[in-house]
């Protein structure tokens, strides 16, 4: 599972580089952040409110950055 997450993170990083544009890279950054939070920072094992709050926070950040930039 952790290896699969790692390979997904690597793929997302390479995809952001190949795409080159800001908004797709921000969205992929958000996906990577959510994956790291849930899998590596172990929010999958946390109280559901922590997990939901983290993912919601990341999504809001991506939207805010896309709008401001």
């Amino acid at each position, binding site marked *: 599972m*952790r*290896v699969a*997450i*790692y390979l997904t*993170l*690597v793929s997302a*990083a*390479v995809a*952001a*580089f190949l*795409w*080159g*544009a*800001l*908004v797709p*890279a*921000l969205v*992929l*950054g*958000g996906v*990577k*952040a959510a994956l*790291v*939070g849930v*899998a*590596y*920072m*172990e*929010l999958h*094992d*946390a*109280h559901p*409110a*922590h997990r939901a709050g983290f993912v919601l*926070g990341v999504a809001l*950040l991506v939207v*805010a*950055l896309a709008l*401001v*930039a």
Partner: protein
Amino acid sequence: MALQTAAMESAALDGSVTATGGRRGILDPPGGLLLWIVVALELLVFAMIFVAVAHLRRTQGAAVRAGQAALDPRSGVVLTLVLVTSGWLAAEGVHAFRASRLERARACYAGAVGTGLIFAVLKVLDYASKIRAGLGLGVDDFWDYYFLATGFHFAHVLVGLALLAYAGSRMGRARFEDPETAVAGTALFWHMCDLAWFFLYPLFYARG
């Protein structure tokens, strides 16, 4: 004896995770409440920096494009891959420690520190090359933001590396007063550095 102590600590750490049957209370996040408060506050500061950089991209497009011409996106993605690899190794180390596989845990933490050091060296070389080219604080807003934002992140990387190295060096050799914070907490701080970089990379390197 030390290994036995560490194995007991490891079991205790594992027990703290499963004590609630895999469902933690709202004041008991993985890695410890105090570390999560620190991480949340740090991520809030990073988020404000990200918004400031995004605003710079909108209001000073010409300066940003000129600055980005001196940044190589390939080096940016290499830094991302190095940091992602380090984070994965730290996560593997935590799980190995909990399973009382101390040799593997130490090896994973050593790998995490090693790849983290590669990131740090690459950033130092990046800063040095920019400064040699006459690009630094005071040149224009883009370079002010670049050095302050990535420098703030770099400071966190150095602290995270020190924490990982300390925790990794004590695994199986000395007793942790609080194994959850010592192992999972240090990894938690390190993953925060990953998260911040995931947004610094597009904000500074993405051209579109």
